[in-house]
């Protein structure tokens, strides 16, 4: 294995590991609280699989406001969590956790997909 491939692979898998732990923590603290709250429980977005609302909430809290506003304008807005409502019921700690979790998760899986594509094209051979 080429050194750069090795470093990318090991770091992305490490990041994925940490992000999955954060996934559980974020689900157990922030999302659990929001699921119980009658004002927010209908605004967590669609659950494609059990636990997908954790991803929706983390995405809504972590993405910049202008992007969230753009999502809201779409007719499919109910697919993702409503950031405006969630903002009122979460604190800075929730936001930071969401940013770290989603950041690590998207970084690591994105790198893995990139590696897979580069590997397919024989860049590392």
């Amino acid at each position, binding site marked *: *294995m080429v050194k750069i*491939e*090795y470093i990318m*692979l*090991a770091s992305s*898998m490490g990041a*994925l*590991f940490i992000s*999955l732990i954060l996934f559980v923590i974020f689900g157990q603290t922030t999302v659990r609280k929001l699921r119980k709250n009658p004002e927010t429980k209908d605004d967590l977005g669609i659950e*494609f*699989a*059990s636990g*997908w609302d954790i*991803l929706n909430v983390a*995405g809504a809290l972590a993405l910049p406001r202008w*992007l969230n506003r*753009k*999502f809201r304008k*779409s*007719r*499919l*807005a109910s*697919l*993702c969590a409503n950031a405006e409502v969630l903002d009122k019921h979460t604190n800075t700690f929730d936001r930071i956790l969401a940013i770290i979790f989603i950041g690590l*998760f*998207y970084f*690591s*899986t*994105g790198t*893995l*997909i990139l*590696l*897979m*594509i580069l*590997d*397919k094209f024989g860049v590392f051979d």
Partner: protein
Amino acid sequence: MSEIILCNKPFSANALDASCGLNTDDLTGFGDANPSTLRPYLPYLYGQNLTATDKSILCQMTPLPVSRELTNMSLSFGADNTLALAEISAKLQEYNIGMMGTSTAFYAGRIEGFGGAVKSYQSALLEYRDAVKNKPALKAAAKQKARAAFNRMQQGFRTEMSIVNARARALSRRGTPLTNPTRGLNIARSSRNIAKLNITSQVQASNLVKFGKQAKFFGNGLAVIDFGSRIGSIHNSYQSGGNWERDMFIESSSFAASAGAGILTINAGLALLLVATPAGWVGLVLGGIAIAGTAAVTSIGVNHYIKESFGEVYDDIMNWIRSW
């Protein structure tokens, strides 16, 4: 290799010797070391000096619903084709991580449909077989039905059938019941009652059993099923004295990575849909299919990539720990 004998009517020792030259002394049933008569729909091991693997394969195939299905399938398609079909359906189930979320309905429907089409072709062949033997008046109609079922299977599942056929061509030049309906009808008419399955591995056996059960997978069950098969491959490695810790590391990593890659693709696709298209639910349906396909491809790709390359990382970590 384990040789499994299956039959659909009772065979006495003499009849067995006369029809296929097998000696009952060489047969072992589950909990029945030396059967005097073969019972229908019960698998028997053929051969002496049986290993633990042979016995565990036999044990897996013994439950009646499984063995009945496998017997019927082997008799109407031929033993090699049954093995090929089981393998294909196991391959299809590998898509399951890609099936999470939007893609669930799409691919689950496909697997179910494929299994269903094969099954209805099979039952049409069995019906034809019954008509030839007992109701000659219905023969032509049953033949027509089997051909129709064959055509449905070919048209609906071209991709899947081409994989089966590629394997089947290697097995027989005359074609097989799965490539050629005439051959299927001939085999059904010849009314064989006994079949032999040559099983070369545990994995093949468990594929067969799963195929026999024709289980349905939906929603969250998918991740559970996928993890189940991964645990199975770790357990195989453990039983065969392999480096199972290493396999566990690779299997669990590739599970996480491929699921993650699928999720990322789905989310990215949906975000694109939300921002870029003015279309509403119609856009979701069309875009959803595209996203589902891409997600499936991505997660399968990442799964393979991790399985190929992550062993090296494990070896390095172990060396690093040992050097301390």
